């Protein structure tokens, strides 16, 4: 089987009348989903060429899943753009993609018309097309497994978001290993927390479509109403949660597990940031028989490259390892001189090689050169590696432990954010003279300090017009001047100390 649609169709043949996707108001069987997607593909293909990127401009829903598959049937690849993003950011993404076709639904149609001028805008709620089997087959015959499936944008330190392109081959490789390793099967109900522009959702969507499991979409606003959220998870018999750490912590912070326990959940696979032991223990206590797994990896290597299954009898001493590589992934540490580190407790940069590597950043040659390199350990033939920018070390059991960042990238509420990108946006505001963004990891708070004649309220409002809400600092503080280090750099530590000491 060559592309993700082959796997999807194989599942559709086996589990015809089983529910493929359930969301709040609608359910769809595998057979219905296949028909709907082929119908959409037959229409969309009229407007695109092979491997063209198509923007999907809507929130997560059954329509969205149908659009993804429809675009793949049409020979294109999809990029979900969150309609709640500020217009400027949406335009930046659209300019990078140079995509001519936008797919949206009734709910977002008007705003799509406003933002994407001169583009072909397709409203999925209005498509009524006969399936053109012949045409779809002909498109399929032209595809290879290295053709892209999706493009996910992440924060870029240069101020422009970077679109990571992932191929059929990487997804097929990863999802087969992932579902086998954690025993995801047709009787599972996968409760999807992650937004669809996040690669955590790739695991939900394709683990379902590769095995015949059911994808249960949780609407975003449920996360503001934790009792409803738990009821929804429980009433739909969810068995599997592949969630961002911050979302699991949201439930425990809201004391959700004192309200009800999702008893049927037998596996919780978490990623995105370091799991606080306190929260993990709360979850494990309430779900004594469930398997908990810490998985690690940046979007560039297709979801995850290492995993560690939590051992309930082990005392973790506050650090849960990111573990060992998934099958068919090469994960290793390089020191400053590009020599491999093999012994415990020495710090190195985590590097990854294998089929899991994405196709790089869309339309961004410079970033590709900076991050995807020839493996310095191999002088004999072409072996591409991705340098994650994350530091790691081996523990005494030979498992990898995450040990911080090389640069100013942070993980906040599951989002990967370059502090420099926020700083660049703040500096664009006229009256700001200088600024610095600092993340307080312990308190999970994002700070923006600045010098300039503008009050912090106005600055926050300006900023939220340009950045997604999770990138707007929670606290914005006006300072007279910045303390400097001996080397004349802004002293981030001193700024935070001054702040907390008033």
């Amino acid at each position, binding site marked *: 089987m060559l592309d993700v649609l082959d796997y999807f169709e194989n599942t559709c043949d086996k589990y015809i009348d089983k529910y493929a996707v359930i969301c709040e108001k609608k359910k769809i069987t595998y057979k219905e989903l296949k028909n709907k997607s082929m119908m959409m593909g037959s229409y969309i293909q009229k407007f695109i060429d092979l491997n063209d990127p198509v923007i999907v401009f809507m929130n997560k829903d059954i329509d969205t899943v149908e659009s993804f598959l429809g675009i793949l049937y049409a020979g294109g690849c999809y990029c979900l753009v969150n309609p709640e993003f500020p217009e400027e950011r949406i335009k930046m993404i659209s300019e990078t993609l140079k995509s001519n076709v936008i797919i949206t639904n009734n709910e977002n149609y008007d705003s799509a018309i406003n933002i994407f001028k001169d583009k072909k805008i397709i409203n999925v709620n209005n498509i009524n097309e006969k399936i053109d089997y012949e045409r779809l087959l002909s498109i399929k015959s032209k595809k290879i497994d290295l053709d892209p499936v999706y493009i996910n944008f992440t924060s870029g330190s240069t101020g422009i978001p970077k679109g990571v392109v992932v191929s059929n081959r990487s997804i097929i490789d990863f999802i087969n290993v992932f579902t086998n390793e954690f025993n995801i099967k047709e009787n599972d109900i996968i409760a999807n927390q992650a937004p669809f522009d996040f690669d955590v959702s790739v695991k939900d969507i394709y683990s379902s479509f590769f095995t015949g499991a059911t994808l249960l979409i949780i609407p*975003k*606003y449920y*996360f*503001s*109403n*934790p*009792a*409803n959220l*738990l009821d929804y998870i429980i009433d739909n018999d969810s068995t599997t949660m592949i969630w961002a750490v911050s979302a699991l912590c*949201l439930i425990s*912070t*809201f*004391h*959700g597990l*004192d*309200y009800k326990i999702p008893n049927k959940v037998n596996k919780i696979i978490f990623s995105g940031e370091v799991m606080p032991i306190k929260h993990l223990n709360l979850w494990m206590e309430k779900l004594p028989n469930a398997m908990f797994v810490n998985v690690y990896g940046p979007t560039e290597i297709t979801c995850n490259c290492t995993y560690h299954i939590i051992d309930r009898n082990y005392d973790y001493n506050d650090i849960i390892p990111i573990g060992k590589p998934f099958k068919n992934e090469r994960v290793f540490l390089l020191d400053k001189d590009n020599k491999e580190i093999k012994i415990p407790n020495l710090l190195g940069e985590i590097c990854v090689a294998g089929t899991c590597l994405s196709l790089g950043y869309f339309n961004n040659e410079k970033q590709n050169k900076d991050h995807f390199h020839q493996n310095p350990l191999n002088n004999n033939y072409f072996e591409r590696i991705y340098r994650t920018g994350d530091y790691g070390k081996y523990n005494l059991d030979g498992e990898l432990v995450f040990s911080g960042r090389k640069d100013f990238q942070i993980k906040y*509420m599951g989002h990967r954010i370059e502090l420099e990108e926020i700083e660049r946006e703040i500096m664009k505001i006229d009256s700001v003279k200088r600024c610095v963004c600092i993340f307080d990891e312990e308190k999970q*708070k994002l700070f923006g300090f600045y010098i300039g004649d503008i009050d*912090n*309220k106005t600055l*926050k*409002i300006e900023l*939220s017009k340009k950045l997604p*809400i*999770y990138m707007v600092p*929670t*606290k914005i503080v006006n300072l007279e001047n910045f303390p400097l280090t001996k080397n004349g750099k802004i002293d981030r530590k001193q700024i935070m100390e001054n702040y907390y000491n008033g």
Partner: protein
Amino acid sequence: MDRLKEILEELQPEVDYETCENLVDGRYLDSLTILSLISEIEDEFDVEIPTVEIIPANFNSVKNIWTLIEKMRED
């Protein structure tokens, strides 16, 4: 109640808290903001807000949030 308004102003300045009565239903406060808000309220007012109380109705206006805090203080 002034302290509560201050906390809200810091988290989300783009709202007129004197008049707004649909903070959650009008999507002025998203889950992320509510999460920060509850952590701050629990720290500041030394209360615990149980899950069943985290419903839009209790967070739609400053008055409602304040009523909730008072109620939790009495418990």
